C-alpha cells in the first residue's frame, strides 16, 4: 500500500476532525434527516417532549430538576448518535478533499481529426463529450477517462492510487485505459473520451469516499426493520404501563416513562449503525480498494467461493527455469550452451530466468556473438532463437520444436521427461540446435510463499478457493495440489469463467473474482464481488463493483475479511445493545414502582441510591455507551479465521454475555458517582 494512506490511518481521531464532527452532529439533528433512523428519531421526539415539560415546570415553579436532567441526557443520546455518524463521514471526507484538488479545471487538446495530431484546439475538459479524441503530451493532465487509441506513454497515476512510480499506458490490449486527473510523464497519447463530465472515475471516487451516494445496504435495511420493530414493542410496553400503573394507584410522570422507553429501545446499535457502515467502506478505501456501494462490501462478507487467477495471485507472476534435461546423447554442457544461445535475444522474464539458471547452475554465460541475428517469437512458428554463422538455435513449445525439426516422434526417453515435467505442473520447452534435438527446459510455476496457509485459513472460514488458469488439466491439477486450492478451472476461457460463476451461484453461493482484461468484464459483472484492477481496461473497471487501486489480485482475500468484519461489528453491537436491556429493567422498574409497592425495592439488586439516581444512571449509561463504542464501531470488531462455531462462541461470550453484565457495573458506578457528588 502506498505510504500516504498509512499516515492517514495512523490516527483514529484528530482535533480538526473531532471539532468538525461535533458541528455536524448538531446539523444532523434535523428531524427530516433523522427520520431515516427510526430508533434515534423516536429518541429525539421524546427528548423534545421531556424538554418542553421540564421547561414548563420550571416556568410554573414546579420541581423541574429531574425532568431537565433526564432531558439533557436524552439529548446527549441523540447527539452522540449523530456525532458517531459525523465522525465516520469526516474520515472519508479528508480523502475526498485531496482527490478534489486533482480535479482542477484542465484544458484539453481536442483533435478534430484523430488521425492528425498536428491540428488540435484547446477546450475545457468539462466541455468534452464521450467519443471526442484528445491529444495528451508529456506534462499534460489527462482531461477525462478514456481509451488510448494511438501511442504509448508512461503515466503517473499517484493522484488515484497513491503509487508514485509511473505505469505504461498503450493502445490496444489490457493497458489502454487512462484515468482523468492522472499525468502523462513522457511521450504522448491519443485518447478517446469514454466518460461524460461529472461521471469520471475520479468523480465517482470522490462521491463514494464522501459517502454522498451512500444508500442503505440490504442488511442495514433488514436490521433497521428489526430495530424499528423492537422500538414499537417497547413503545407498546411503556404506553400500556400507564394503564397498569393507574390501576395500581400510581401515576408515572412523562420523564420517567421517557427514560424507561429510551433505555429499552436499542439506541446503542441504532446510533452506531450508519457509522459502522461508513467505517467499513472507509476501511476498504484505506486499503486502496473502492467499492461501488455498501452492498458490494456486504456481499464480500458473504462470499463463499473465490475465483483466483493462477498467475500473479497464486503463483509468482512468471515461470522460472528449474531444470535442464538433455536429450539422449547430448551432454549437459552442450545443452546448457545451446539453451543459453537460443535464449540470448529473449527479453521476457522467463527468458531471463533461463539465462540466470544457465549461468548459476552450469556456468554458461555466453556473450552475444558479433553479427548474430535474433529470431523473435512469432505466433506462427511459436519459436524463438538465434542464427549465427550458419548455426541456428531454437527453443519453444515441444510440438513446435519437433515440427521445426521435422521429427514425427521424439525419442522415448525425451518424451518421458516431457511428460514428467507436465505432470509436475511445470511447463516443458524443447531446445534444438542445427536441426538436432538437444533437450528440454523445465519452467516451473512458483507458488507464492504463504499462499497455502492463506487458503487453509479461507477453508476454515468456509470459503472455497478456485484457481483459474489457461494451463492444461495436468499442469493445473499439479499446481492446484501444491497451492492447496479446492478446485480449478483448467484451459479456462472467459466463457468458462462466466459459466462456472453462474453454476456456483445457482447453488446459492456468492462468488468473488478479480480481473483486468476486457474479456473478464462479463464474469466481473456476473460475480457478486468483482474486483477490477486499476490498471485494467475501462470495460473491466466498469463491470466490476470494486476497483483495486494497487492492482493486486491477492487482495481479494483481505476484501472478504473486511466485508466479514463489517457484518461482525454490526452483529456484535446489535447483540450487545439488546442484551443491555436486562440490567436496565433491574435499575428502572423498582425505581418507578417503589411508590406503589415499596416491596418491589427487593428487585433493586444493584442497590442504587435513590429512585431518581437509579433512573438517571440508566439514562446516562445509555447515552455514554454510544460514545464509548464509537472507536469500536469505526475500527471494527476483529475478525479471526477460526470457523463460524468458534467465532460465534467467542463473540457471543464477549458481546452477548458482556452486554448483559457490563451495564450492571456501569449503572452502579454512575449511581455511586451521582451519590458522591450529591446530585441525586
Amino acid at each position, binding site marked *: 500500500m502506498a505510504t500516504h494512506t498509512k499516515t492517514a490511518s495512523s490516527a483514529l481521531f484528530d482535533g480538526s476532525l473531532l471539532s468538525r464532527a461535533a458541528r455536524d452532529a448538531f446539523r444532523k439533528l434535523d428531524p427530516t434527516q433523522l427520520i431515516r433512523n427510526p430508533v434515534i428519531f423516536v429518541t429525539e421526539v421524546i427528548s423534545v417532549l421531556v424538554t418542553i415539560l421540564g421547561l414548563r415546570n420550571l416556568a410554573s415553579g414546579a420541581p423541574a430538576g429531574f425532568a431537565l436532567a433526564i432531558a439533557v441526557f436524552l439529548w446527549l443520546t441523540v447527539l452522540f448518535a449523530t456525532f458517531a455518524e459525523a465522525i465516520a463521514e469526516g474520515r472519508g471526507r479528508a480523502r475526498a478533499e485531496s482527490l478534489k484538488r486533482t480535479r482542477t479545471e484542465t484544458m484539453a487538446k481536442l483533435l478534430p481529426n484523430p488521425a492528425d495530431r498536428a491540428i488540435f484546439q484547446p477546450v475545457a475538459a468539462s466541455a468534452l463529450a464521450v467519443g471526442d479524441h484528445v491529444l495528451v503530451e508529456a506534462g499534460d493532465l489527462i482531461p477525462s477517462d478514456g481509451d488510448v487509441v494511438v501511442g504509448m506513454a508512461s503515466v503517473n497515476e499517484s493522484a488515484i492510487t497513491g503509487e508514485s512510480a509511473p505505469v505504461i499506458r498503450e493502445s490496444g490490449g489490457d493497458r489502454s485505459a487512462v484515468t482523468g486527473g492522472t499525468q502523462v510523464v513522457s511521450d504522448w497519447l491519443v485518447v478517446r473520451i469514454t466518460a461524460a463530465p461529472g461521471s469520471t472515475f475520479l468523480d465517482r471516487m470522490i462521491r463514494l469516499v464522501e459517502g454522498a451516494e451512500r444508500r442503505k445496504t440490504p442488511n442495514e435495511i*433488514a436490521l433497521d426493520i428489526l430495530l424499528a*420493530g423492537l422500538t414499537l414493542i417497547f413503545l*407498546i410496553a411503556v404506553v400500556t404501563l400507564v394503564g397498569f400503573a393507574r390501576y*395500581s394507584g400510581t401515576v408515572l410522570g412523562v420523564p420517567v416513562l421517557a427514560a424507561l422507553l429510551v433505555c429499552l429501545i436499542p439506541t446503542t446499535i441504532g446510533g452506531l449503525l450508519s457509522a459502522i457502515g461508513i467505517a467499513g467502506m472507509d476501511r476498504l478505501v484505506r486499503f486502496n480498494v473502492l467499492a461501488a456501494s455498501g452492498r458490494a462490501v456486504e456481499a464480500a462478507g458473504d462470499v463463499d467461493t473465490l475465483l483466483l487467477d493462477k498467475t500473479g495471485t497464486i503463483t509468482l507472476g512468471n515461470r522460472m527455469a528449474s531444470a535442464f534435461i538433455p536429450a539422449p546423447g547430448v551432454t549437459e554442457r552442450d545443452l546448457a550452451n545451446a539453451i543459453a544461445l537460443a535464449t540470448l535475444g529473449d527479453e521476457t522474464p522467463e527468458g531471463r530466468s533461463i539465462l540466470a539458471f544457465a549461468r548459476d547452475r552450469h556456468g554458461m554465460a555466453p556473450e552475444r556473438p558479433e553479427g548474430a541475428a535474433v529470431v523473435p517469437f512469432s505466433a506462427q512458428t511459436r519459436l524463438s532463437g538465434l542464427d549465427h554463422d550458419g548455426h541456428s538455435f531454437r527453443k519453444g513449445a515441444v510440438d513446435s520444436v519437433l515440427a521445426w525439426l521435422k521429427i514425427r516422434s521424439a525419442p522415448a526417453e525425451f518424451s518421458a521427461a516431457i511428460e514428467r515435467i507436465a505432470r509436475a505442473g511445470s511447463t516443458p520447452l524443447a531446445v534444438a540446435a542445427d536441426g538436432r534435438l538437444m533437450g528440454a527446459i523445465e519452467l516451473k510455476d512458483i507458488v507464492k510463499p504463504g499462499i497455502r496457509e492463506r487458503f487453509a485459513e479461507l477453508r476454515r*472460514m*468456509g470459503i472455497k478457493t478456485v484457481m483459474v488458469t489457461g494451463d492444461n488439466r495436468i499442469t493445473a491439477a499439479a499446481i492446484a495440489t501444491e497451492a492447496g486450492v479446492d478446485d480449478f478451472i483448467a484451459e479456462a476461457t472467459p466463457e468458462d469463467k462466466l459459466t462456472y460463476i453462474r453454476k456456483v451461484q445457482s447453488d446459492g453461493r456468492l462468488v468473488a473474482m478479480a480481473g483486468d482484461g476486457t474479456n473478464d468484464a462479463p464474469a466481473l459483472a456476473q460475480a457478486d464481488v468483482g474486483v477490477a484492477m486499476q490498471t485494467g481496461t475501462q470495460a473491466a473497471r466498469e463491470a466490476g463493483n470494486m476497483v483495486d487501486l494497487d492492482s493486486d489480485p491477492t487482495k481479494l482475500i483481505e476484501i472478504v475479511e473486511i466485508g*466479514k468484519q463489517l457484518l461482525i461489528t454490526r452483529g456484535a453491537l446489535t*447483540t450487545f445493545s439488546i442484551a443491555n436491556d436486562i440490567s436496565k429493567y433491574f435499575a428502572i422498574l423498582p425505581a418507578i414502582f417503589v411508590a406503589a409497592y415499596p416491596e418491589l425495592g427487593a428487585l433493586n439488586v444493584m442497590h442504587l441510591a435513590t429512585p431518581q439516581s437509579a433512573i438517571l444512571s440508566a439514562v446516562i449509561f445509555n447515552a455514554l455507551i454510544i460514545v464509548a463504542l464509537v472507536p469500536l464501531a469505526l475500527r471494527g470488531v476483529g475478525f479471526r479465521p477460526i470457523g463460524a*462455531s468458534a467465532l460465534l462462541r467467542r*463473540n457471543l461470550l464477549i458481546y452477548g454475555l458482556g452486554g448483559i453484565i457490563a451495564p450492571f457495573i456501569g449503572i452502579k458506578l454512575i449511581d455511586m458517582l451521582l451519590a458522591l457528588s450529591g446530585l441525586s
Partner: protein
Amino acid sequence: MTFSGWAEILLVLLLIVLAAWPVGLYIARVTKGERGFLHPLLSPIERGFYALAGVDPQHGMSWQGYATALVLLNALHFLMLYAMLRLQFYLPFNPDALAGMSPRLAFNTAMSFVTNTNWQAYGGETTLSPGSQMWGLTSHMFVSAATGIAAALALSRAFAQGGLKTLGNFWADLTRIVLYLLLPIAVVAGIALVALGVPQTLATHADATTLEGAKQTISLGPVAFMEAIKELGTNGGGYFNANSAHPFEGPNAWATMLEAFLVFLIPIALTFTFGKIVGDRRQGYALLAVIGVFVIAAIAIAYHAEAAGNPLLTALGVDPAQGNMEGKELRFGIPLSALFNVITTATSCGAVNAMLDSYMPLGGMTSMFLIQLGEIVPGGVGSGLYGLLVFALIAVFVAGLMVGRTPEYLGKKIQAREVKLAMLAVLILPLSILGLAALSLVVPSALASLGNAGPHGLSEMLYAFTSATGNNGSAFAGLSADTPWLDTTLGIAMLLGRYAFLIPVMALAGSLAEKVKVPPSSGTFPTHGLLFVGLLCGVIIIMGGLQFMPALSLGPLAEHFAMLAGKTF
C-alpha cells in the same frame, strides 16, 4: 420439593419424549403422502374425501393459496359453530332443553374453539348440551388442532429445499392429520380414559343418595373422548366447568399423567417432524432442547413456589411441609399439579387441574410468562412450532451477523422481508396482551369483573388477555368473564393471537420457500448444538418476554414481594 416428586415429573417428561420421537417421524411420513401402518384401513376414506371434495392432494399451493384455504375453512367453521351454539335449543341431544347462548357468548365461544384457545366463558355442563359438546366443540377441537399442525408443516417445508413455489396442499394436510394422527390416538386414549374412570355417556346426570340421605345430581356426559382430543390437540376446553380438576375429567393420578402425556405428545413430536422434513435431525433436537430448558425451569419455579408454601400461613401455624395446597386436588398433590400446570400453559392447552388463582404468585406468574413468550415452548400443536421458528429466525438474524455473513437459517438467507414478517407476527403479542389488558384495567365495566383487588386483580386481568392472545384458554379464575366487554375483547384477542400471527407466518413461509438453499460450510452459523440452544433461549427471554416485565412487576411480582413482606390485599 422432594426426590420422589421430581422423579415423578422427570419420568413423565422422559416417557413423553420417548413416545414423541416415533410419532414425529410418523407425522412427517403420513403428511408427505407415504404409507403408514393405518393406510390399509384408512386410505379408502382419505381417497373418498378427496373424491367428494374434488381435491387433488398432489396439487401444491402457493402461500397465498394455502393461507386462503386455511382462513376460509376456519371462517366457515366459526360461522357453523356460532350457529350451533345459538340454536342449541332446537338441535338434538339436548335432553335438559338447555337454551341457546347469547350472541356475545356464542361469538366468544365459537372464536375460542376455532382458534384452538378453548377459553371457557360459559359454564360447561350447565350451559351446553351433550350434542353441542360433541359436534359443536369436540369436532372443532380436531379442526383447530389440525389447522395449527398444517401451518407448521407448511413452514417446515419452506426450509426443506431451495426454490420451492408451493408449500403443500392444505386440504390434504388437514385430512391426513385428522385421519392418521388425531383420530387414532384420540380413540385409543379415549378408551384408556374410560378404563380409568372417565364417563362416556349420553346421559346428562346420575342421581345419587348421599350417606346423609340427601339427593344429589351428578353431571355426566360424553366426557372421555372430548377429554382425549382436548389434551391431544392442546385445546383445553373441558366438558365440565372445573375442567381437569373435576373428578370425571381427571379421576386419578394415572389419568392425569395420561392427560399430561397427551398434551405434550404432538408439540414435542413436531420437533422431530421438523428435523425430518428439513433433512437434519439435529435441528429438531436443538428446538427440543430449548423447549426442555424452559419447561424444566418453569416446573422447578412453580414446584418450588408451591412446595414452600405460603409464608403468611406458615406464620399462622399451618404446617409448611404440605406446601400450598389451596386450590389443588389432594389426589394429585403438588408435583403433579405443578407439572400439569406447566405442561398445559407451556403448550396452548389451557386445561387446568388446579386453580391458578390459588397458586403462589410466582407459581402463577410462571404460567403467565410461559404464555406471554408466545406459546412457543412448546406451544400449541403446530402453532408452537411455527412460533418457535419465528424466534429462531430472529435469533439467527441478531447473532448470525457475528460470524461475518448475512444471516441464514437452514440455508435460507434472512433478509428485510423475512425480518419484517417475523417482527409483524411478534408485535401482535404485546399489542393484544398489554394493549387490551391495560385498557380493561381502566374501563370501569371491565374492572367490575375482577374477583380480587390489588396486584392479584391485575394478574387476573393480564392473565385473561395473555391466555386469549396465546390461544391457551386457561383462566386465572377469579374473573367473571361472561360480560359484554370481556366476551368481545377476549374474542378479539383470540382472533388476533391466532390469525394476525399466522398470516405473516404463512407469508414468511412463502418468502423462505422461494429462496435458494445455501449449502452449509464451516463459515455457516451453526443452528444446532448448545451454543444455539443458549442463544435462542436468551433471545426468547429478551425479545419475547422482557416487554411484559413492567406489567408483571405490578402484578405477581408485587404480590410476591409484598407477601414476603407480610402484606396482603
